[in-house]
Structures are given as C-alpha cells and as structure tokens.
C-alpha cells in the first residue's frame, strides 16, 4: 500500500510539461538508436548520461530509463522490416517478425511487437515494484557454476530454435560463436588467445561489429542474391493490433514477462536471454508449434515481451544490490552514482520512494512506446516500398558507420566486412546466424565462469552437477539436445504410437 502511494506521488511529479517533454524526446531518440544497426541501448544511455549531468537527478534518470526502454523496443522495428535486428536482443524477434513482413503483414507484426513490448515491461514493472528485494536475493544464488550452465543453455536452445529441421547446424553456429568470443585477451591472465602478435586481435572481436556484419552486411548480400521481391501491397494489413488477437495469448504474455524479468535480473545475461528463453518456452507450450519461425504471432509476442520485461528485471539488482543485470543497466547504475543516488541493499530503508520512482519511469516509458508504436508504424512501413536497389546501399552506409561508431576503430569495419561475408556463406548452407551472435555474447561468461568454478571446487566437477539450479539447467540442456536428435524423435514417436496402439485394444476388450 505504501508502495502504491509512492508510485502515485512519483507519477504526479512526472506529469508536468518538462517531464513529459523529456519522456517523449528521450523515448523517440531511444527508438532511433535501437533501430540503427550498431547503435545500442548501452551507447545511447552512456551518451545521455553525460548530457543530462546538469539536470536534477530524477529528471536525468527518467531520461536515461526512457532511452533504455526505447532502444530495446526500437530494435524490433528493423528486425521485422529488414531482418536486421537493431540490437542483439532482437534476434529472436526477427525469426517470426520478418516472415510476417514478407507476407505483407508488416504492420500487424509491428503492432503485435509493440503490444508484446508494452505488456512485457508492465509485467516486469509489477515484479520490480512488488518483490524486488526478494528477487535480488534469489539472483545472488546464481554463482559461477550456474552462470556456466546458463551460457551453455542459451547456445543450445537458440541453436535448436533457429534451425528447427536441422538443430545440428544451429548448434554448430552456436559453438562457432563461442569460439569467436575466445579470440583476444582472456579474463584471468590477459593472455591474448589466437592473436598471433596482433594488437587488434588481442583486443578481440567486438560484439557490435560482428552483429552488424552477421545480420546487416550478410542480409544485404542475401537480399541481393535472391530473386527480387515484388513491392509488398499492404492494403489488408492493419497497424493497430486487435485486442482479441493479443488477449488470445495472455498465457504467453505472462509467461514471457515473468521469464524475461527473471533473465534480466541475473547479472550479465540481460535482454538477449530474456527473449530467447521466453521464445523457447512459448514454443514448448504452444498449440501451433509448426508456425514458429514462419511468422508465428505467439513467437513474436513472446520474444518482444521477453526482451522488454528484462529491462525492469535488470533494474532490480541495480536498485537493490547495486549490481547491473545488463550492460545498459551498468551505465544506468553509474549515472545513479554520479547523481549521488545510492542504490544498494539499503535503498528500501534510506530512499524507499526511489524504487517506485523508477517503476513510474518504466511505466511512462512504456506508455510512450505504445504511443510511438501507433504513430510510427505507418511511416516505417514505407521502408518496405523502397526497392532494394535503393535501400541496400543506404543500409550498407549505416552498417559501416554502426560498426565504426562504438569504438572509432577502422579494424571494426574490417571485422564487420569479414563476418558479413562469412555469415552470408554460412547462411547459404543453412546455418542460422542468431545462435552465432548469442555465442559471441555468452562466450566470455562461459569461459570465465567455468574456470572460476573449477578453482572454487578445486578441480571437481561435482558442484557443476549437483547444485540445485545447476542440476535443473543441465538436465534441461540434456533434454533439449536429446529431443533435437531426429533418431530420438523417431524413437519417441514410435513409443508413443505403441503405447497408444497397445492401449486401444485394451479399452475395446
């Protein structure tokens, strides 16, 4: 009850002209940052941290939260329209969003994605407001052993889901991604792996140049190699999502919102895993499994609800432990320190209203996403009408700038080109790109946590297998792999048939 009062007070405080103006421009800027390949939520939040230094703390944090929420949402636009996820978190969105757009239902897809994002962040927001301290303590149970399994889990489920008829290729892509992450200095001894004396290689491949190459440049090449699409007519397409269509999947939304929030609060994992695990669970529970990857409304909604719910999820450890749940949240935490706000275990005692202020910020940012979702979809649809011969050169310029922007290194542009060509070739042979990029994200987590876990257990593998969360994770991994093998699938189908066949005569007699 007390919380509700704080929330109300914060809402009233933010409902003045200056705050509303800040919310509107910051969210819009966030959406643009998210849409452009190479510019991510982390960059956007860091940029605004410096620029808003002179503002009062709550206004500055409000602007940063709007930027963060907007950027994670904005990435879904380019994922749906161009099959180029604007941020790594939107790779799962492209799986179903882009097929919808190709079918001429881009407006519907964007409407569904908007609904998923907004509802996902509402669920995350509710969890943030109600049980934040409790969840933060739970996050502390994730230690080195669990992080290791979580990284393996991510690669295995993403490999399975992006390559449904041939999971082997998905897993190969995932392990290639993990190996890409191995290049460069490792976290313990700073030994430059696979660098061969080159300073640039010793720094490793940046996630963004690899992302922009694998999704951006490779997509450009793929579009050029394919027969040209006829201009898509969108007369039957509706921009505003039908309420009934959204409510039909209420179970998926709630499940994805909760999953996304939980993934968000595990430090270092963040929005990417939020989207992937929601997507996996949605497919597992779905009655329309065969639609997934071909334009499933349910899958699209799960992915977007999952990654946006991870935003308030990532805020939970920021506020209650002063530990960031994701990279953009790390910058947000720094901004809070800079403004003299002290998040941490004491915040519920020293500054309880702040948690609810942040909740109100997430609420307002989500509300303005809804507004922009309705306003911007029509103009964005025009992108689909530009012929590829005119659109692709422009996107190539954006890819080049995006690869270069984050660290101002020309090496990153070469990385983008190399991964673009390699990604194009791999795609032609049926290897999915999404597990590869998730492997690059999770590689460092897997590497340092496996070795650290072994130090802590003195070389024993037992804790990796016996700790409760680890146990649950490795059993899920084993099942995912087993069920992905065609021979096992056939065997199981056979068993099911025999059991049914065996029972049928019984009931007859």
């Amino acid at each position, binding site marked *: 009850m007390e919380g509700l009062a704080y929330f109300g007070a914060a809402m009233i405080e933010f409902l003045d002209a200056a705050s509303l103006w800040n919310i509107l421009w910051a969210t819009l800027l966030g959406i643009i940052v998210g849409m452009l390949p190479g*510019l991510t939520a982390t*960059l956007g939040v860091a*940029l605004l941290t410096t620029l808003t230094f002179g503002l009062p703390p709550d206004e500055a944090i409000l602007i940063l939260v709007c930027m963060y929420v907007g950027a994670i949402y904005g990435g879904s636009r380019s994922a749906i329209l161009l099959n180029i996820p604007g941020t790594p978190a939107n790779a799962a969105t492209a799986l179903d969003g882009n097929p919808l757009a*190709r*079918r001429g239902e881009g407006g519907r897809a964007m409407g569904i994605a908007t609904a998923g994002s907004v509802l996902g962040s509402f669920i995350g927001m509710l969890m943030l407001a109600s049980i934040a301290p409790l969840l933060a303590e739970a996050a502390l149970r994730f230690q080195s052993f669990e992080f290791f399994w979580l990284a393996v889990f991510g690669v295995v489920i993403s490999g399975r889901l992006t390559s449904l008829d041939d999971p*082997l290729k998905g*897993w*190969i892509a995932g*392990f*290639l991604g*993990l*190996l890409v992450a*191995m290049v460069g200095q490792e976290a313990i*001894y700073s*030994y430059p*792996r*696979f660098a061969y004396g080159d300073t640039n290689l010793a720094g490793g491949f940046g996630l963004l140049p690899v992302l922009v190459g694998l999704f951006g*440049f490779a997509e*450009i*090449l793929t579009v*050029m*190699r*394919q*027969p*040209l*699409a*006829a201009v*898509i007519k969108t007369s039957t397409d509706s921009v505003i999502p039908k309420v009934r269509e959204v409510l039909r999947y209420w179970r998926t939304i709630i499940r994805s919102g909760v999953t996304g929030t939980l993934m968000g609060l595990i430090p270092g994992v963040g929005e990417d895993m939020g989207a992937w695990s929601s997507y996996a669970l949605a497919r597992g529970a779905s009655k329309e499994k065969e639609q997934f990857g071909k334009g499933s409304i349910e899958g699209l909604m799960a992915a977007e609800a999952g990654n946006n719910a991870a935003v308030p999820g990532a805020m939970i450890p920021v506020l209650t432990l002063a530990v960031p749940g994701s990279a953009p949240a790390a910058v947000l935490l720094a901004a809070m320190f800079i403004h003299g706000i002290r998040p941490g275990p004491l915040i519920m005692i020293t500054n309880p209203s702040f948690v609810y202020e942040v909740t109100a910020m997430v609420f307002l940012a989500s509300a303005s996403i809804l507004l922009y979702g309705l306003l911007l979809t029509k103009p964005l649809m025009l992108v689909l009408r530009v012929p*590829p*011969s*005119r659109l*692709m*050169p*422009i996107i*190539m*310029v*954006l890819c*080049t*700038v995006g690869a*270069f*922007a984050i660290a*101002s290194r*020309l090496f990153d*542009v*070469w990385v983008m*080109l190399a991964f*673009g*060509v390699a990604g194009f*070739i791999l*795609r*032609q*042979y*049926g290897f999915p790109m999404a597990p590869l990029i998730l492997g690059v994200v999770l590689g460092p987590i*897997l*590497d340092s946590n*496996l*070795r650290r876990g*072994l*130090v802590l257990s003195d*070389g024993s593998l037992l804790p990796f297998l016996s700790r409760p969360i680890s146990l649950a994770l490795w059993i899920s991994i084993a099942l995912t792999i087993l069920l992905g093998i065609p021979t096992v699938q056939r065997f199981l189908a056979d068993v099911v048939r025999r059991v049914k066949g065996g029972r049928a005569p019984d009931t007859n007699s």
Partner: protein
Amino acid sequence: MHRSDFVIGLILLGFGMFVVSESSGMPRYANIGANPVTAPGLVPGILGGILAFLGLVMALRALIAMRADGRPATPPDQIEVFGVEAKADEPPPSYVPEPPATSRKRFLTMLTMSLVFAAVAVSRLPFWLATFLFVAITITLLELPRFSSARDAAVRIGFALVIAGGVAWSVPYVFENVFLVRLP
C-alpha cells in the same frame, strides 16, 4: 546438399582439431603457481573439441545419406555460391521472375562496391564524399539492367544522385551532432 554438408563437416572437423592443437600450446602459468584448471587454453580447447565432434557427426550423416541416395542429387531449390552448390534461402512469396545470372551479377556488384567502400574508400576519402560516390554509383549499377529508355535512365540516375546527396549529408550530420560519434 549432402555433398556440401559432407565437405563442410570435414572442414569443421579440421578447424576444430586445429583449435584444439592451438589451445594446447597456450601457456599454463604453472611457473607462477597457477591452478591448472585456469589455463587459458582450457575452454577454447573444449569448444574446439566439441566443434570437431559436431563436424564429424555432420560429415558422417551426409555420407550415410549420400549412400542411401546412391548419388548426390541436386534438388531444384539449390543455387551456386562461389562454385559450390548451396541451399538458397526461401525466396519471398511474390517475386519478380528473372534469369539466375541477373541475381548473381547483382550480388557481385553489391559485394564489390561494399568492400571497396568500407575497406578502402572510407579511410582514403572524406566520409561524405566516399558515401556520396558509393550510394550514387551502387544504385546506378544495380538499376542498370532495368533502364528501359534514355529518359528512364536519366530519371533513375537523377534519383540515385538525390538519394546519395541526402545520405551523404544526413548521416554525418546525425551521427556527429546527435550521437556524438566520430566517423571514419
């Protein structure tokens, strides 16, 4: 399809084994009393091993399938990439029919122009100039096969120049002033 899978499987097997041998050569820091489980080569070694195993499985699977087929057949949905057959992405549901040589030419144009732009032009020319030339020339080259008359050609080239001008002006402006990032 099976043949290319077989070849890729073998490449992955070889690559995985190469990674394992490289990883085993990495220092173990035993001289500073480091715990052997923290050796930098441990994780890449394991990953290389897994990749080699997956490559082997893929090659064997393709081999068995090739045996079953009698000879490697080339299903009609396959195209060639760099001289090796590959499975094409599903084409868009409605597309303009065109001979295969057109899409290959278009692909090679885009690839060459992109590499020249990003790897060479960007570091030698001012960014706006490189961008202008790249966008204008690439659009013109891509639309070349569709020029129907001199008038049409003029309109299309004019359009390309306008787009190139817009991009060359707006991208540096937005990125340098709004996002405060440096351009090449």
